[in-house]
């Protein structure tokens, strides 16, 4: 009984989005097929439902463990943090939001930059964290991605970015918007240098992240069922005043419309990246 209680207590720090998934404590109801899953099974299966293959969100660190050899890497720019340039306050001061997210996740902002190996090949991999203010992109994410690109240029390494983000971070205003331009300019240099960039789009990838680096990969690869778009579904529904059809803005839809190279299951992702880099590089 004791651990049920403990589990419940830790719920308070879980954002409402994830709460639905975890209310059963050690058991989780799949949001897609409604199967009751043992949490541990889900963990060992990289957060993919063993019954229906639904892809739950994977944390930024787990993502690196999935992709990088021996779960080993060197992190870059780990300490970069926002200083709340606009002194932004909505229902809660942005400063406090940052502090809470930092405490909850043990990271300074919504992305990790890792230098490691993928099937023996050295590369730079950026991994976004949705739990950190919706994976939103402000000056820190913009700066870290740009530095990651510049590191690739300096060391002649390929780049992989795993996106998971609601878009630009409102609380840093137009500064957030400028990160789209900053990163895209750096990607132009990476492109000129003929270094590969593989963009991995996971659920969700929307707004300014999609409208910049997530769509600019030499390959754009998405996980199954991921929400991918520029405008969010709610905004579109308000514009057209009707419900969106099932599957709209999901990976398979984007594949059909020509914006993805492939939809790849999480368990095949590492092999897929590895094989494609083998085609591009010696």
């Amino acid at each position, binding site marked *: 009984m004791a651990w049920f209680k403990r589990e419940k207590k830790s719920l308070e720090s879980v954002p409402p989005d994830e709460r639905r998934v975890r209310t059963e404590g050690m058991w989780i109801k799949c949001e897609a097929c409604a199967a009751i899953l043992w949490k541990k099974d889900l963990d060992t299966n990289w957060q993919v439902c063993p019954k229906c293959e639904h892809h739950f969100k994977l944390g930024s660190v787990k993502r690196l463990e999935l992709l990088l050899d021996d779960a080993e890497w060197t992190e870059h720019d780990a300490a970069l943090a926002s200083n709340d340039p606009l002194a932004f306050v909505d229902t809660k001061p942005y400063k406090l939001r940052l502090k809470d997210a930092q405490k909850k996740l043990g990271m300074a902002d919504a992305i990790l930059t890792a230098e490691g190996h993928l099937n023996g090949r050295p590369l730079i991999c950026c991994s976004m964290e949705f739990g950190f203010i919706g994976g939103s992109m402000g000056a820190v994410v913009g700066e870290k991605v740009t530095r990651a690109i510049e590191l690739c240029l300096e060391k002649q390494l390929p780049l992989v970015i795993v996106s998971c983000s609601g878009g630009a971070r409102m609380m840093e205003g137009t500064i957030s*918007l*400028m990160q789209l331009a900053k990163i895209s300019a750096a990607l132009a240099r990476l492109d000129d240098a003929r270094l590969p960039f593989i963009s991995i789009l996971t659920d969700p990838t929307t707004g*300014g992240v999609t409208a910049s680096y997530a769509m600019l990969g030499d390959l754009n690869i998405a996980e199954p069922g991921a929400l991918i778009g520029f405008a969010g579904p709610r905004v579109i529904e308000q514009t057209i005043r009707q419900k969106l059809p099932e599957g709209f803005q999901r990976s398979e839809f984007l594949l059909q419309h020509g914006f993805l190279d492939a939809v790849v299951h999480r368990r095949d992702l590492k092999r897929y990246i590895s094989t494609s880099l083998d085609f591009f590089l010696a």
Partner: protein
Amino acid sequence: MDAIRKKREIDRLEKDVEELRRLASKGSDEELERLHREVEELKREFYRHLGAWQRTQLARHAHRPYTLDYINMLFEEWCELHGERGFADDPAIVAGLARFHGQACVVVGHQKGRDTKQKVLRNFGMPKPEGYRKALRVMQLAAKFRRPIFTFVDTPGAYPGMDAEERGQAEAIARNLREMARLPVPIIVTITGEGGSGGALAIAVGDRVNMLENSIYSVISPEGCASIMWREAARAEEAANALKITAHDLLQIGIVDEIVPEPEGGAHHDPEGAARLLEPVLARTLEELLPQPPEKLLKARYEKFRRMGQNVIS
């Protein structure tokens, strides 16, 4: 609210002065002149201290000059080009060839409509992917023939509709951002009205970014921000302040290079006056950029955007 009351007060005073002047048929009455000057000073003071929300309303004013107005007033031999060679021509973005002070150039800009029919035709200045792709096609034409580019930014945002998503709104914007960063010709950007997020930025990566005094430039509309933050679009005024979207704010943060003054009361009071104030800024900027070799231009453009946000992290 306060600003509106103050503006009414000024209008009332102004009417009083006019009335007095009419009555005192001589027209050289000293007292009258003094009153007149005071009202003028009050007016200047009022417009200097407009808040973000008042400026938002000016930026969206129905009589504000739009891209084609500026083209008519500032450029010669305008020759509009259509289509992105893939799907359709998007009237929410205009692009074409023109001459500025005799120099052959390319002009690209968002286009809003003035009457209902035009508004619908121009989709309220909200481009679809084919609009951004047209913009890029014409800008690449400029690069090919080494012609400078002027862009005029005035959009509530990229169109958030089903068809736009289906045809890759995000991809179109992203591609423009990357490609504009490496077009080897001068790009002079002017935010003339609403700089609505990614839909604005998609034609706003340039060597110089100027903002008209009453234009705004934001990652999200004040209404959108308010409805996300407080679930209440009515708190847009608060959101407008919090987002720091005015030309003065953004000059201070280092996101824009120069503020272009507008005629008193805003560009809609005197469109030709607005164009007259913009012209020397464009001329001077072009003169600065035109002689620069492409490598130098591109390096400076990269560094300009590279710096953005660097001072707000620790």
